[in-house]
């Protein structure tokens, strides 16, 4: 039996108290770990989806809504913009790349994105099966879509208007799956990607399904030939009352443009230039996501404050447990001194008691935290879609564990310091 063993024996001797203190600490550490896992993994996921996109151009409205709908595919779009905006931006020497997006349709709640093959390339999408779309009504589906719908190559499906999956179907215009993407860990995984011309055609602004095959094959010029015979697809969720929806002679439209800069000069000039246009707005993903995270941050801070409060409570509880046992402990300390133990060793063994308790709570807290995240990810597929994984460990967790253990040691410090002040002869003379 060593002094360290004695520390354990004391903990075992007041098992109920020890269990309660460990429970308190476990709850606090688990809460903090869950916060860390959610915020770091989700913000990393946010960053990954927005990576390389310097600016999003779309219809006027909320810039955050524009970013959420066009990059993360979670909100409804702000509206549509003229297709010629694409050419205008592509002719700008400070712009490296422009990817048009036509949004607003879905299949069984999986969003259909009308775009160009560059969109798939941007997210590092690679074909697991099949090939890239090169004609209207050909579609490439993300890994999660394939898993969720069970669709294989050659599968035909009809997109419906609206994003919730309950809009009216475009019955006469079936899409065909020509490619299935390998998982990318990005938003691409849960999208159905097709040529932008498919969307126009589905909404009656192109000719029928296969007729404009050749033109559509030229990604960079997609849609130019349609300018005189149709107009853009509008998202009804955002623009239910759009007056010119099917009006003849109207221009073709897209929903948003993802823009990559060539030079940093663009960041200075381009957003303000675009925002001066009556129909357009420009939003920088970095700015909007920082704003969103700082808004979410208020809620996160509240939960974190609660968890920290819980940790302080458990620290106080450990302190009270050790301090209230001090009278009996003084006798034990005196006896340990009689048996030849040195004061620093006795001090260390009492601090160790607090540290062991805290370490047990901290380790259990990490396990419970990851367990809750695993459970949440298994229960809510959306969280898995967002890339939440219980198997990843964040450096911040180590900080939490160290902080909890340090707090345990700190709580034991005052009772432990008593060993340097205890009057052995006096304590031993006490016959109670």
């Amino acid at each position, binding site marked *: 039996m060593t002094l360290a*063993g004695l520390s354990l*024996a004391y903990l075992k001797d007041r098992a109920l108290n020890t269990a309660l203190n460990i429970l308190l600490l476990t709850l606090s550490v688990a809460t903090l770990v869950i916060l860390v896992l959610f915020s770091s993994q989700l913000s990393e996921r946010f960053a990954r989806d927005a990576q390389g996109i310097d600016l999003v151009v779309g219809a006027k409205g909320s810039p955050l809504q524009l970013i959420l709908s066009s990059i993360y595919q979670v909100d409804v779009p702000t509206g549509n913009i003229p297709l010629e905006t694409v050419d205008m931006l592509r002719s700008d020497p400070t712009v490296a790349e422009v990817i048009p997006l036509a949004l607003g349709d879905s299949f069984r709640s999986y969003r259909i994105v009308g775009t160009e093959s560059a969109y798939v390339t941007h997210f590092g999408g690679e074909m697991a099966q099949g090939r890239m779309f090169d004609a209207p009504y050909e579609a490439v589906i993300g890994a999660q879509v394939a898993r969720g719908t069970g669709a294989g190559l050659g599968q035909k499906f009809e997109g419906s208007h609206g994003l919730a999956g309950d809009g009216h179907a475009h019955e006469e215009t079936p899409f065909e799956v020509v490619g299935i993407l390998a998982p990318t860990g990005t938003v691409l995984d849960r999208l159905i990607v097709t040529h932008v011309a498919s969307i126009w055609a589905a909404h009656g602004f192109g000719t029928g399904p296969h007729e404009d095959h050749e033109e559509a094959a030229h990604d960079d010029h997609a849609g130019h030939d349609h300018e005189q015979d149709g107009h853009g697809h509008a998202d009804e969720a955002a623009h239910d009352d759009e007056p010119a929806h099917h009006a003849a002679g109207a221009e073709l439209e897209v929903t948003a443009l993802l823009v990559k800069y060539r030079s940093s000069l663009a960041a200075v000039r381009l957003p303000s230039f675009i925002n001066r246009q009556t129909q357009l707005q420009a939003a920088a993903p970095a700015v909007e996501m920082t704003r969103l995270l700082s808004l979410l941050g208020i809620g996160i801070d509240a939960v974190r404050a609660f968890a920290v409060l819980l940790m302080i409570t458990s620290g106080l509880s450990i302190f009270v447990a050790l301090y209230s046992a001090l009278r009996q402990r003084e006798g*034990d300390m005196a*006896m340990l001194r*009689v048996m*030849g*133990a040195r004061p620093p060793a006795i001090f260390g063994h009492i601090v160790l008691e607090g540290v062991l308790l805290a370490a047990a709570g901290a380790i259990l807290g990490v396990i419970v935290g990851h367990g809750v995240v695993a459970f949440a990810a298994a229960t809510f597929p959306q969280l898995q879609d967002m890339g939440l994984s219980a198997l990843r460990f964040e450096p911040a967790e180590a900080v939490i564990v160290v902080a909890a253990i340090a707090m345990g040691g700190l709580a034991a410090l005052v009772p432990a310091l008593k060993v340097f002040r205890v009057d*052995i*002869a006096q304590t031993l003379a006490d016959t109670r």
Partner: protein
Amino acid sequence: MTTPSERLIEVQGLRHEIGGRCVMDVASFSAGRGEHTLLIGPSGSGKTTLINVITGLITPTAGEVRIDGQSMSSLPPAKRDQLRRRTIGVVFQTLRLISALTVRQNLSLAQTLALGQAEPKVIDELIGQVGLGHRADAMPRELSQGEGQRAAIARALCARPAIVVADEPTSALDDANALAMADLLLSTAEATGATLLIATHDNRLRDRFPRTLALTPPQVAA
């Protein structure tokens, strides 16, 4: 006549004052290896104080205590603790068994502190010797008064100290138990060859000890 090295305890001109009042005064005393001494005197005569000085827990106002040739009172604290750890086992009236540990664990801790490691065989043997073989894994609160005393004696002896000191080991006991306790101390000390020093105001023990050191309250003597 004992040789110096065999004089395990040597006390010279020892005085201790608390708040200017002399509470203990011993001109000279010594005990050789394996000798058993009864330190007898009324309450307040300074027995406990003398024991605390001998074990190095308090520093006397004047005089010197030598334990196994080393001056306990002039050693630095760390050396004092070391000397006590290696050479002295103590039994108190209040026993002071560690309540969170079983009898066996109490002995094991004492051994680990004194010797650096536990010797399970020695522990089992000693526990059997004091008649606690069936109670080895009991917690102190589960022991009767008599069993607790046996455990405390076994703990004081388990690191084979050269000196065993007991402060009022029998004061709370009835006649039969007091004598049984004294006999157990004597026989176990005999078995290990330890020098035994028992401080008591209990005259019932006088017959058991060939050597006695009588203390009187210093202020009465002065």
